[in-house]
């Protein structure tokens, strides 16, 4: 008999209108890395929430070491040595690393916390597994990668030996991902068992031993990674064959649609500028990608560009119209569609129904209103069109509230809404965030279709695969500045990664020098500065 440490047998969990898990079985062997793969809304998160005690399954049973257990809350899970790193970290930002790790498992003596033992244990663990952290740093001050290491240490500190990772690589740089993979292998070697939720097939191929695939809440199968291919996995997941490379024709850039000149945006957190003197153009029919690690000014730049926040200095021109200080609505009317970074904060009114959300950018147009009354029939028809075209799945179709939908389907709804507007400029911030390969393939195709029809696309992405596959030009942003411009055909992921991490700053220095000379030339006269720009481009490409 196999040595299963966790068995989830015939788990069924129903939510109103949707069956998230339908007779799903998952068996985790001792000391293996087991990947859990599935489309958005396939029920991966639900299944893990059942295991972690956040949801109560309608039927089915969970066994630990062959014995049936009941997990009613995360504390029960903890007692069974099950730990989880959530997709969105659960850390207290203003606490130190040490405090975060011991939170909930504090050693006390007469009601006073004993930190010395804890510190020793954390140091031991961090040395043993190569998890570098500073126990006294505040969580809000440390990098995302280190925050993740804190989450991992939290599990180890509690002596967990069943570790669940929920999409752990989404926020990491390529180098950090490699490190994480190494750490996971180390755990497995030690006899710890790992459940690894991800969309990324290459990571599964690299690190996992076995993989369980879910589709639409149903159990499809479990395969040994050594005996399978990414193609097989993706067709199991989606139910059809998926192509990984994006087919696209040669880029035929047209007129300049968006001109960004010397834009500076003050930071809300610190006194420095979050975006420093950024200039670039986006032409019709090309996809320009703003790449970079989270928190290097992309968010602030896009908010300023789209009118959500104020531009400090500089100028933004869209189709010949100065929109630097225009309202959000004027941006929209001038021809900007915007897939926002934060779908909960900006993209959707979560308590509105799906159909109401589908007209969020258009409700005031004659198509949907007459004398101030909303034409509900048109709204319904229009939203059904998008829902169908973009395969947005939900419990009650256009009537379901946005809040009740899975993250991936929320994203598909937003992408559908913005793409359907047919605007000359599409600002897409992580348009495929949290989507599965099938949906990513579809959205990439749509973006390229839009490009080919002459839409200017400004893409902001943290996913290097996406950056490399989709874009015609890549601008790397580091600490609020554009530190380099690359052609995806001639550059490599590794090189981009180095610039994104700030390890290579050659071009940064170069750029600063250029900026200085450009400012000088500005003073001399506009004509020269106009000449200087194409020069800059060629010189960069030449390097």
């Amino acid at each position: 008999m196999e040595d299963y440490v966790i068995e989830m047998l015939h788990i069924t969990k129903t939510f109103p209108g949707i069956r998230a898990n339908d007779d799903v079985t998952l068996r985790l062997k001792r000391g293996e890395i087991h990947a859990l793969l599935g489309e958005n809304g396939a029920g991966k998160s639900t299944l893990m929430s059942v295991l972690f005690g956040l949801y109560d399954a309608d039927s089915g049973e969970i066994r630990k070491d062959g014995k049936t257990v009941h997990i009613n809350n995360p504390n029960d899970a903890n007692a069974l040595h099950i730990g989880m790193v959530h997709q969105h970290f659960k850390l207290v930002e203003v606490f130190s690393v040490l405090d975060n790790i011991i939170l909930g498992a504090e050693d006390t003596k007469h009601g006073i916390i004993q930190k010395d033992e804890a510190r020793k244990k954390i140091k031991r663990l961090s040395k043993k597994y190569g998890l570098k952290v500073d126990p006294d740093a505040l969580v809000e001050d440390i990098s995302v990668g280190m925050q993740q290491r804190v989450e991992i240490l939290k599990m180890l500190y509690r002596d967990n030996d069943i570790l669940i990772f929920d999409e752990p690589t989404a926020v990491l740089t390529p180098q950090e991902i490699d490190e994480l993979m190494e750490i996971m292998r180390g755990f497995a070697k030690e006899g710890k068992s790992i459940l690894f939720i991800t969309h990324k097939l290459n990571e599964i191929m690299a690190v996992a031993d076995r993989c369980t695939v879910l589709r639409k809440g149903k159990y499809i199968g479990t395969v040994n990674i050594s005996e399978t291919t990414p193609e097989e996995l993706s067709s199991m997941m989606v139910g059809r064959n998926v192509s990984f490379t994006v087919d696209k024709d040669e880029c035929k850039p047209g007129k300049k649609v968006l001109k960004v000149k010397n834009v500076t945006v003050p930071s809300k957190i610190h006194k420095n500028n979050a975006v420093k003197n950024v200039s670039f153009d986006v032409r019709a029919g090309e996809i320009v990608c703003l790449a970079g690690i989270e928190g290097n000014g992309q968010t602030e730049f896009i908010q300023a560009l789209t009118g959500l926040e104020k531009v400090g200095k500089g100028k933004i021109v869209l189709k010949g119209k100065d929109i630097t200080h225009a309202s959000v609505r004027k941006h929209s009317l001038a021809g900007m569609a915007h897939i926002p970074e934060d779908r909960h904060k900006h993209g959707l009114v979560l308590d509105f129904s799906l159909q109401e959300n589908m007209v969020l950018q258009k409700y005031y147009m004659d198509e949907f209103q007459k004398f101030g009354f909303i034409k509900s029939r048109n709204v319904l028809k229009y939203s059904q069109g998008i829902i169908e075209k973009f395969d947005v799945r939900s419990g009650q179709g256009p009537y379901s509230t946005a809040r009740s939908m899975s993250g991936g389907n929320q994203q598909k709804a937003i992408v559908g809404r913005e793409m359907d507007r047919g605007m000359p400029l599409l600002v897409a911030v992580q348009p495929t965030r949290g989507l599965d390969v099938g949906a990513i393939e579809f959205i990439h195709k749509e973006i390229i279709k839009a490009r080919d029809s002459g839409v200017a696309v400004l893409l902001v992405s943290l996913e290097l695969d996406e950056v490399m596959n989709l874009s015609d030009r890549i601008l790397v942003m580091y600490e609020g500045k554009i530190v380099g411009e690359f052609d995806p055909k001639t550059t490599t992921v590794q090189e981009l990664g180095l610039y994104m991490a700030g390890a290579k700053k050659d071009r940064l220095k170069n750029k600063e020098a250029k900026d200085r000379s450009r400012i000088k030339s500005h003073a001399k006269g506009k004509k020269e500065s106009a000449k200087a720009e194409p020069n800059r481009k060629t010189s960069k490409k030449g390097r």
Partner: protein
Amino acid sequence: MNIFKRFSKCLNTIVAALICVIIGLAIGFLILTFLSWRSLAAGADPYTFRDVIVQAWKDGFLRLIEGGTYPIFNNATASYRKMRTELSLLPPLLMCGLSVGFAFKTGLFNIGAAGQYTLGAFGALLFALVLKWPWYLCLIAAMLFGAVWGAIPGFFKAYFNINEVITAIMFNWIGLYGVNTLMYNEKLTSLPSMMYNAKTTKTFTLKAINSDAIIPPLASDEYIKAHKGDTLAEFLQSPVTYAVVIAVVIAIILLIVLNKTVFGYELKACGFSRTAAKYAGINEKRNVILSMAISGALAGLGAGLYYLTDTLQWNPQESTALPSMGFDGISVALLASSNPIGTIFSALLIAHIDTGGGLFSAKVFPPEVADIVSGVIIYLCAFMMLFKNIIAKPFVFLGQLKAKLTGGNKEGSEKK
């Protein structure tokens, strides 16, 4: 199908609200029983447990739930006056409920309805007594005064991000003392000579100064004369005026505005998510001010509808407490889950219970028991979601069962 779904969703809420009401009444009955027992125990006569219950039931609880209908049920020849008084409470209560509910729907907590109500009363009386305008113009004045008083906290919220609750509470008191001073202090303006009757220590009655400012009763004098003694004619006399109709019509208008118009769409978008509204290009600052102004206008109108029926005069000396109407509005809105049509019924209920509380035999039961009952009901409203889930459980279970039966077959065939 869709209509059915909507209806069942609605029904769920209604049943949950009714559960709140029933539990509230049950607790009220327990209190009445306790009070009844204490009062009998204090007396010299021997008593049984049955006496305690009977007294609590007959002199207390029955009157509470009969409310304004009590004299009619118990004495056929009694006038319909109590019933009419109860109905005349509906417009101000309903308007305050709508005021708070409207603000809730747009993501704001208008605790300032009391202040806006005060300003509305002042506006109505100012235009009725001093300028001697007819009632409909006075109503508009009341709305404007209330709107301004609501817009100020809205302005601070929109531009300085100051919590509207704090500003509104401040403005409640500023409004109250400001209005009282203006009405009472002769040194300040000449208004008191025209508005304030020193003999009654209240404002002048409209009847004495400007009877045009009294909102006409629903039944005309001729109709009442012709149908003397008819139930309907008895019902529709003063103080049951067009105010009732106006209030109900406004509730319906609000329902339409919130659910069917572009304006309502924008307001709700702002209410649910200010950031998403901003993303959609909605001017969220303007909308915050606007919804507070509308909310204030509704409360102000409520005061106008009440004081222009001339049943009650403003008493600047006694009114050192804020009019409770504004706070009752919060209860009314909560009980109705801010639904404008639901607000009509919850306002009726609160008016009914309050009237019933006034009918207790005062020696045994203080009328405040009615407040306790409505308080308990409001408190239970916080558990509304819980009740909804409990009600929904059997349905969910049935759905699962059905899914199991039908889905089970499918699975079976797939496995084969």
